[in-house]
């Protein structure tokens, strides 16, 4: 216990210098945790929104449905009934998907028309929760349509106004029909909002000439972390004639957002460790050089090189890791506060919406990150100790004792 005692006391020989290092570690850890929590909330918010408003966890299509979204490639109703028996789901819904045009008196644009069953759709997706005006589809009135605020602005549409949807039916004939706007929504992702609108499935199927057409089945799982891939595999194996995709496959940018979190964490952690290493090496080298005589004396009276090395390593690790728990505590408190209060970027919502980023964030951070960070700080201190410790054991006692 003598070495740890000496190492600990040596840290406090130069209080100012030690507090500078400890303070640097504290601030670095605190800033890192706070930044990571915000980064996670941005990225996870994007992923969460994508799942809630666009992809759900799993989507099922006919293998030939593809990017063309050809109407003739449908999923059998019996198959849908079987899929409804899938375990571990919060909800499952069926959709008709058609590409066409939406027209108003003021303009026209291409659009994806999603025909949904309101009862099941509101379980699987949260579009109904993002309504700014009006209400979601009721399923009881004919030719209702719910559009985004973006489309409403582009086509100069308001609640209760009519628009015309035009598309090809099953016979490749162009059909058009008038629909009344019953709800206007805004998900916060402009790209998604501009690309689609929702109508009752029975209305679009009637116009398609396919009363029972199902182009897409969407599932929301209870615990996607553990169930996503197993459920996907199980469904694919049980039904080889359908294409089962998870949200990462459906939306590669979502996968990119998910993976970039960890890339960001890794890069930031590396930069943080690098800065820390140099700071600690500098401090410890000064300490070793200042104590050359003392180290020479220790080796003269019989302290072997392994012990000298160990003493410097211990001292460095202690110095490097004191500030970390304090920084983590401060970081945890900051994240907790920001999570409760929220970070409101609605002033910049135009910009954030363009990238699908939420304008109101609630930062949070997995407990894993704290653990990984503690390990990183420890490893950094350990690596930083090597050079000063090697310098210490290279001292020759006789020369060290003689130094002026």
């Amino acid at each position, binding site marked *: 216990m003598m070495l740890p005692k000496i190492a600990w006391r*040596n840290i406090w*020989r130069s209080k100012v210098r030690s507090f500078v290092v400890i303070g640097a570690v504290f601030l670095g850890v605190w800033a890192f945790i706070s930044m990571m929590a915000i980064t996670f909330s941005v990225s996870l918010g994007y992923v969460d929104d994508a799942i809630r408003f666009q992809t759900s966890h799993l989507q099922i299509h006919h293998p030939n449905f593809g990017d063309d979204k050809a109407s003739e490639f449908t999923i059998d109703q019996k198959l849908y009934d079987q899929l409804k028996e899938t375990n571990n789901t919060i909800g499952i819904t069926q959709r008709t998907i058609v590409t066409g045009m939406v027209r108003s008196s003021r303009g026209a644009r291409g659009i994806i028309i999603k025909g949904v069953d309101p009862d099941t759709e509101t379980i699987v997706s949260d579009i109904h929760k993002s309504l700014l005006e009006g209400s979601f589809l009721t399923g009881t009135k004919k030719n209702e349509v719910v559009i985004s605020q973006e489309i409403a602005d582009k086509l100069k549409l308001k609640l209760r106004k009519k628009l015309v949807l035009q598309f090809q039916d099953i016979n490749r004939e162009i059909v058009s029909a008038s629909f009344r706007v019953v709800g206007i929504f805004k998900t916060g992702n402009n790209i998604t909002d501009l690309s689609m609108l929702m109508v009752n499935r029975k209305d679009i199927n009637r116009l398609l000439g396919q009363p029972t057409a199902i182009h897409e089945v969407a599932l929301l799982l209870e615990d996607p972390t553990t169930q996503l891939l197993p459920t996907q595999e199980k469904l694919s194996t049980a039904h080889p004639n359908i294409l089962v995709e998870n949200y990462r496959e459906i939306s590669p940018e979502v996968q990119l957002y998910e993976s970039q979190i960890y890339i960001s964490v890794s890069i930031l952690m590396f930069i943080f460790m690098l800065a820390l290493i140099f700071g600690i090496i500098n401090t410890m080298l000064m300490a070793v050089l200042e104590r050359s005589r*003392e180290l020479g004396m220790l080796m003269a*009276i*019989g302290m072997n*090189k392994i*012990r000298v090395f160990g003493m410097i390593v211990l001292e460095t690790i202690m110095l490097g890791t004191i500030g970390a728990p304090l920084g983590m505590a401060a970081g945890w408190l900051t994240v907790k506060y920001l999570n409760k209060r929220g970070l409101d970027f609605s002033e910049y919502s135009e910009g954030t919406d363009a990238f699908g980023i939420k304008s109101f964030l609630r930062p949070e951070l997995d407990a894993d990150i704290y653990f990984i960070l503690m390990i990183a700080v420890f490893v950094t201190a350990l690596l930083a100790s090597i050079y000063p410790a090697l310098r210490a054991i290279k001292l020759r006692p006789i020369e060290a004792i003689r130094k002026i």
Partner: protein
Amino acid sequence: MSIISASNIKKTYDPDKIAVHALRGIDLEIKQGEFTAIVGPSGSGKTTLLNIIGGLDRPSEGKIEIANTDISDLSDNELIDFRKDNIGFVFQAYNLIPVLTAKENVEFVMVLQKRSKEERDQRTKELLEAVGLTDKTNKTPSELSGGQQQRVAVARALASKPRFILADEPTANLDSESTAGLLDMMAQLNQEEGVTFVFSTHDQRVIDRARRIVTLVDGKIESDETR
């Protein structure tokens, strides 16, 4: 019986550039229980000789045996271990570990020797008593005077039960009163307990107390006088 046996010790610094012959063939035997001062003008080689005897430096030529062990052939790590168990050191300055108390400084070498806590505590108490510092057990070096620090250094040097103690100018930074006190203590340890002391010194007060005086001039023994 000789505990230190130096045969034809030569030491040359920077032999490839301008050679400095610090020692030019020293033959010296020191026996158990001696109180020996190695004296000489500055540059005579006394500190070099002491460093070689203490295993802190290696001779360019010759052999140095400590208790029949030829230390010239030991590796650096072996020398460190040898010093720990066989040689006690009292330096001119920077003797003590600044962050340890007097008690902890004295027991430090015993910790390196892996002695039990009971043994360490007992011996530390005895040694601090022997050097008259029982009341300074928990003081750090910064709280002790120069003389008191040197006393702790002597106690620390004795703690490992060395074969002899090397003291390089131990009184150089001390006032007269502290010097007298330190020398009295060392002489008493020598006479009553048979501790062997080898000094390197300019200090006449030390020379006056020594029972054997080895005078070096220009790297050679000029005289070797036993009183």
